[in-house]
C-alpha cells in the first residue's frame, strides 16, 4: 500500500506584521504568517484575518436598499454609525471621506479633521481613513486627518503614485500606516511599495490594496494577482510581502446583483439574500488568496465572515 506523506511547503519569507491602533486605542495586528492562507500544517499563522466595517462621513446617496435597511438611521451620524459597527463586530472602522469628493460636496480640511476626531472619540477600535481617490484633493485633506489622529496609528489611503509623497510624509510624522493601492498588477504593487519604503516609510507601516474586483466583476483577476503577490512575498521578496487589505464591501455592493430591486430575472432569487451572499462570496474567495483585512458593509456578512475566519484559524 502506498504510504501518504504530506509534502510540506516551506517558504523562506513571511508576510510583514502590521499593527493598527496605538496611544491607548485597541490594537489589531495582521500578517506575520509564513505560509499560504490558513495552511496551518505548513507553517505558522500568528494573526487572523481582521474584519473592518466601512462607514461614510455623510449618509450614502447611492447605497443598496439592503444596506440602508440594515443600518437604519445611524447612517446620518458617523459617530453613532461607528459605535453601531463596533457592536456588530467591527475590529476596525474604515471611514470613507465621501463628502470631500469634488462631485459629492467637496468639503474641506476642517470637515475631514472634525469627523476624524469624532470617530476617534466615539470608538476605541483602530481607524482606517480613505480619501477621495482624487490626488490633489487627498493631498489637501489627508494631512489634516493624519494630524488629528497623531500617535493613534491609523491607516491612511488612497496612496498612489501621484500622491504617495504626501501620504508617506504624514504617516512618518504622525506614526500611521499607509495604504498603497495599485491596479491589479504585481509589478505595479511592488513598484509602489518600493517608492514608499524608499521615501522612508518603515516596512511594517504598509497595508497594500491590490484593488478588489467583486464576484462576477473581476474577482478572478484580483484573486490571482493576490496569490502571486503572496507567493512572491513568501518566496522572500520583502517588497511584495505586505499584508493585504481588500475593500470587499465597496466593490460587491455597487454591483447590480446587490443593488437593484426590480426588473430582474427570477433566477436571481431574493434580493437581500443575494446581496449579502455576493459580499460574503467575494470575501471568502479573496481570503483564500491572501486577504489579511477585509472591509465589509453588511452586518450579517460581518458576523458570518467573522465566524468563518474563526473556524479557519482552527
Amino acid at each position, binding site marked *: *500500500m*502506498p*504510504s*501518504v506523506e*504530506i*509534502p510540506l*511547503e516551506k517558504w523562506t519569507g513571511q508576510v510583514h506584521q502590521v499593527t493598527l491602533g496605538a496611544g491607548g486605542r485597541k490594537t489589531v495586528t495582521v500578517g506575520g504568517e509564513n505560509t499560504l492562507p*490558513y*495552511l*496551518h*500544517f505548513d507553517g505558522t499563522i500568528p494573526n487572523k484575518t481582521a474584519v473592518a466595517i466601512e462607514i461614510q462621513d455623510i449618509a450614502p446617496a447611492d447605497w443598496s436598499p439592503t444596506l440602508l435597511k440594515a443600518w437604519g438611521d445611524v447612517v446620518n451620524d458617523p459617530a453613532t454609525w461607528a459605535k453601531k459597527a463596533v457592536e456588530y463586530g467591527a475590529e476596525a472602522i474604515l471611514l470613507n471621506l465621501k463628502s470631500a469628493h469634488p462631485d459629492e460636496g467637496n468639503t474641506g480640511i476642517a470637515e475631514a479633521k472634525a469627523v476624524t476626531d469624532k470617530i476617534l472619540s466615539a470608538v476605541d477600535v483602530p481607524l482606517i481613513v480613505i480619501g477621495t481617490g482624487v490626488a490633489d484633493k487627498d493631498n489637501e485633506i489627508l494631512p489634516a486627518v493624519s494630524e488629528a489622529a497623531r500617535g493613534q496609528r491609523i491607516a491612511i489611503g488612497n496612496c498612489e503614485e501621484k500622491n504617495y509623497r504626501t501620504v508617506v510624509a504624514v504617516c512618518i510624522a504622525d506614526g500611521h500606516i499607509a495604504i498603497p493601492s495599485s*491596479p491589479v498588477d504585481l509589478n505595479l504593487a511592488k513598484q509602489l511599495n518600493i517608492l514608499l519604503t524608499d521615501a522612508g516609510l518603515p516596512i511594517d507601516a504598509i497595508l497594500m490594496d491590490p484593488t478588489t474586483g467583486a*464576484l*462576477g*466583476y*473581476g*474577482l*478572478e*483577476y484580483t*484573486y*490571482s494577482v493576490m*496569490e*502571486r503577490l503572496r*507567493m512572491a512575498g513568501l518566496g522572500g521578496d520583502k517588497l511584495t510581502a505586505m499584508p493585504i487589505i481588500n475593500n470587499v464591501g465597496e466593490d460587491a455592493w*455597487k454591483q*447590480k*446583483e446587490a*443593488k*437593484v430591486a426590480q*426588473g430582474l*430575472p*427570477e*433566477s*436571481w*432569487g*431574493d*434580493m437581500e*439574500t*443575494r446581496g*449579502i*451572499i*455576493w459580499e*460574503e*462570496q467575494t470575501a*471568502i*474567495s479573496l481570503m*483564500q*488568496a491572501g486577504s489579511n483585512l477585509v472591509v465589509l458593509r453588511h452586518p*450579517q*456578512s460581518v458576523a*458570518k*465572515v467573522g*465566524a*468563518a475566519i474563526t*473556524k*479557519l*484559524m*482552527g
Partner: protein
Amino acid sequence: MALTGVQIYKFLPKTNCKECGFPTCLSFAMKLAQRATELGACPYVSDEAKSNLEAASRPPVRLVTVGVGEKKIEVGNEVVLFRHEKTFVHPAGLVLRVKDSDADAVAKAKEAAAYSVERVGINMYLDGIAIENDSKDAAKFAKLAADVKAATDVALILMSSDTAAMKAALEKVGEDKPLIYAATADNADAMIELAKKYSCPLAVYGNGLQEVADLTEQAAKAGVEDLVIDPATRGYADSLDALTQIRRLAIKKSFVALGYPVITFPGEGAESIDDEAMLAGMHIAKYASIIVLDNFSPAVAYPLLTARLNIYTDPQKPIQMAAGVYPLGDPKADSVLCVTTNFSLTYFSIAGELENSGYPSHLLVCDTEGLSVLTAWAAGKFDAEKIAKAVKEFKLPDTLSHKKIILPGGVAVLKGDLEDELPDWEILVGPREAMAIGSYLKQNWS
C-alpha cells in the same frame, strides 16, 4: 515527482521512427512530460518502460465522468495548484442532496435541476442531484432514485452505505452512470463489485488520507478506476488542509492513489445557509470537484455558479466579443447608439440594460482585446481615435439618421477628444454604471 522530458526519453526506443506523430523520440518525450500526448501513441515502448512511465503519462488528477448525455459531470484532469499557473480545467460540479425520508424530495430535485441562470452569455445550471438513503429502506431509496431520474435530466449520486439498497437503486438507474457513494473500509468489496457490474464511477470515503489511499488502491486493483474521493473532512480548516494536501500530492508528487477528483459536503459543516455557501465557495477555489449542497435557492445558487465561473475562467484569455454593431431590441435608423468595449462581461452588462430599457439601440463594440472600459482606457486601448475609427469602419454615418453617440460615464474624459475626431457628431456622456442607462435615456434621449 513528475518526470522531465529527458528522463522520459531514456525509456523510449530512440529510433525516431515518427509513428507517434512527432519527428523524434525526444520531442515525443517532451510532449509527454507536458502531458500533451499519451504514452500509447508510441507502439514500441517495452512493458518495463511502460510501467516506469505510467506515473508520468497519467494525468495527475484522473478525469471522471458522472452521468450520461448532455448534462454529465466531467471532473478532474487538473494540472495546477494555482489558476495563474495555467488554468483550472473542469468546473466543480454543484449538486443538491435530497433524502428518501423527505416527502418533498422529488419536488426539490425537480426545482433544482430545472434551475438555470445566464451570465455573460453563458447558461449556468446545477449539475446534479444526490439521493441519500436516509430512511434505511432499500425500496424507498430505489423508488426515489427512479423518480428523480424520471423527473430530471441531470447527473445522479446515490448515497447509501447499505450495499443491498445501493444494488436496488442501481437496478433502477444504473444505466445513467450515477456516482456510487460510497465505498468505506466496511463495505468496499461489495461496492467495488457494484461499480464494476454497472460500470459506474465510485466514491470512496475514508477517515484520513491514508485510509482513502488504501481504498482507492484496492478499487484500482479490482479494476475500478473511475473514483472520486471523500476525505471525511467537513469543516473549514480540516477540509482546506485535506483538499490542499490531496491536490498537492497528486500534482507535485504524482501520487496516484490520491490522484482523483474530490467530493465535499459543505452543508454538513455549516451552521447556516450563508455558512454553507461560504464553505462551498472556499471549496470551489480550493480544490473540490463535486460539491454537494443541502440547500437550494436561486439567491445562493447564482452567486456560487458565478464564483465557479470566475475561478475556472482561463486567466490567459478574457472571454471576449467580436467587434461590430450589435442590434438590441430591433433598432431603426433613428435609434440610440452607445459605444463600449469587447470584454464580454462589459458587453453583457450594458447590452442587458439596453434591452430592458425600452429603447431599441445599436451597441458599437470596439476591439479592446477583451479589456473592460476603464482597464482598456487606462491601457490606451479605448480612446477617441479608436472609437472614431470604429464608427467609420462599421458605416454608422450611412446607416443612422442621426449623429449622436453615448459614451460610458467612466470615460467621460474622452468627450473632448472624440468631438475633435468626429466634428459633426454630438458626443453624450452616459452614466458610469450600466444599470442607470434606462433612466438616463428617459431624461436625455429624444
